[in-house]
């Protein structure tokens, strides 16, 4: 694999703390959702990204509003970083009219075009051709906006993955393909779905570079993204960034994940992206107990408010079950 150029970046203490806030908020949001499912307050459709938060925060942080993202089903944090209010996302999970799809579908199957967010279907990998189409329009307009498209290692086995990356390579589109390799496609481990070690290797067959990185290190993700962004914005085409990570919960909240060992889970929990980054910030005197307490209080208050807003939001009118089909 050819080396990806290291891109220097400088983040201010304030920016580093912002990234820390997004990590904490994404984690707390998913943890609260997990509780709400157990309490029966959220029906279903919860696919947490707990353990994988460094990927969406490291890739989305600092994007322009005009840049597009095409997140996957675990990337609730991407919606938050890109600008959707937590109370709106919570309403979406509660199937209320105050949510993005007004109760039509759960989870992340809705988007906000004005904020540059595309919401995919449940067909994993189906967002990738759409991302290529978004990127094609940026190329047509000769702007330097870009698209980041997310997928799991499981979705890298679909036809849409191949068709989208191939087209993006042919057209040298301004798109970054971010693989969240969390080791399992539902229950099927990576070695049973791929005969290679790294999804990143697949990039070369499409004529662009792929790099495998530690997806639990938010700054490593940020750095790799900045390098890929610089290339995409200057017309040098796509990059595939494979982020090695692990999902702590099951595929969805009802999945007990008996297909993996306690030891494996414990090993990956020891690589939790949040304490790693906490230590980084503390050793540089960017974060102290007081600041940490302040951030955690803000996060909890934000989630509490979101739950209250969603709880009080109106259920859809039954008549709305057949509207919004046609423009």
């Amino acid at each position, binding site marked *: 694999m050819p080396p990806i150029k290291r891109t220097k970046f400088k983040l201010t203490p304030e920016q580093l703390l912002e990234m820390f806030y997004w990590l904490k908020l994404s984690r707390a949001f998913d943890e609260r959702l997990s509780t709400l499912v157990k309490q029966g307050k959220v029906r279903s459709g919860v696919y947490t990204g707990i353990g994988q938060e460094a990927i969406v925060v490291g890739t989305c942080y600092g994007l322009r509003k005009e840049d597009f993202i095409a997140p996957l089903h675990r990337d609730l944090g991407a919606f938050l970083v890109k600008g959707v209010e937590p109370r709106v996302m919570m309403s979406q999970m509660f199937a209320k009219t105050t949510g993005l799809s007004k109760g039509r579908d759960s989870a992340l199957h809705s988007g906000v075009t004005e904020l540059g967010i595309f919401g995919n279907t449940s067909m994993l990998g189906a967002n990738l051709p759409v991302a290529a189409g*978004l990127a094609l329009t940026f190329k047509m307009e000769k702007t330097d906006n870009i698209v980041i498209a997310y997928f799991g290692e499981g979705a890298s086995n679909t036809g849409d993955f191949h068709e989208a990356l191939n087209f993006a390579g042919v057209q040298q589109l301004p798109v970054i393909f971010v693989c969240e390799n969390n080791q399992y496609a539902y229950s099927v481990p990576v070695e049973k779905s791929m005969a290679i070690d790294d999804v990143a290797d697949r990039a070369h067959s499409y004529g662009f570079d792929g790099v495998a990185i530690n997806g639990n290190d938010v700054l490593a993700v940020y750095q790799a993204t900045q390098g890929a962004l610089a290339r995409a914005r200057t017309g040098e085409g796509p990059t595939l960034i494979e982020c090695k990570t692990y999902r702590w919960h099951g595929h969805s909240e009802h999945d007990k994940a008996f297909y993996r060992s306690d030891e494996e889970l414990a090993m990956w929990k020891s690589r939790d992206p949040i304490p790693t980054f906490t230590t980084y910030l503390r050793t540089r005197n960017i974060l102290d107990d007081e600041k940490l307490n302040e951030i955690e209080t803000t996060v909890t208050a934000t989630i509490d408010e979101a739950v209250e807003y969603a709880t009080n939001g109106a259920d859809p009118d039954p008549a709305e079950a057949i509207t919004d089909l046609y423009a």
Partner: protein
Amino acid sequence: MSKELSYLEAIREALAEEMRRDPKVFVLGEDVGAYGGAFGVTQGLYDEFGEMRVVDTPISESAIVGISIGAALRGYRPVAEMQFADFISCAFDQIVNQAATLRYRYGGRATVPIVVRAPSGGNVGGGLYHSQNPEAWFIHRPGLKVVAPSTAYDAKGLLKAAIRDDNPVVYFEHKYLYRRAKGPVPEGDEIVPIGVAATRRDGTDVTLVTYGAMVTPSLEAADRLSKEGVEVEVIDLRTLLPFDKPAIFASLDKTSRVLVVHEDVKTLGIGAEISALITEERFDALDAPVMRVTYPDTHPPFSHVLEGANLPNVDKITDALRKLAEY
């Protein structure tokens, strides 16, 4: 002002005029560029509009539609060509799950103005994978519109309507008609509205509902019946979703007898829906059961002898009309 064009030339003229009128309109598909398309529909467009608006794609039907959806979300009006309607099954997920549901799952906050052109139909010696009429698959999917012109005039006017429509439209263009159907085509901006049928022949005794390549043999059969003293009203649906229910009912109220003719297979074809709807809502107006002349429930064979046995034709339609008139 009008001029004489073939059905194929009318499609090309609609594309060229819409591309000149609106810079957001572009075409993409296999061989549509310098080659001008497998049937020559896009000939000349590449020279006039260049490679960024007449985009040659790899053999990637799913991506062709997915890319179109992405572009549509950014305000473009892509016209995607499936080289043959038979290949549309490769793009099925992007059409039925991605495009058709998008507005619904976005809570009405997005539109998907794409057109998927699908050269369909038999009687051209194409065999199993170059002769299909898969329109019923798409009529069954809320969120889509489906059109199937039978004349050069409608081919142009309906394509313009489809391009300007804010919803995903599947446009079935019949290959048998490409060079055989010739007729006057208006110059300029004549739109044939989606959802409105055309009465091709007035009659008082039997209503014949059809579309596409079946219109001509239906009219010939109606002429035969006229010599026997039976006047058949021939309705060309032109749009299959949403089809023109008032036009069918208005004719039925005059004739009390309905025959549906389509080249698609019988089981759960559009004839089944029209028949069910009439039974539900206009049972009292009927003097005879709704009858159908369709392709049998089988594949389109390569042999001229076998295909001829399957295709509806003037004789089969005439027999059914006689039976219905005498009922």
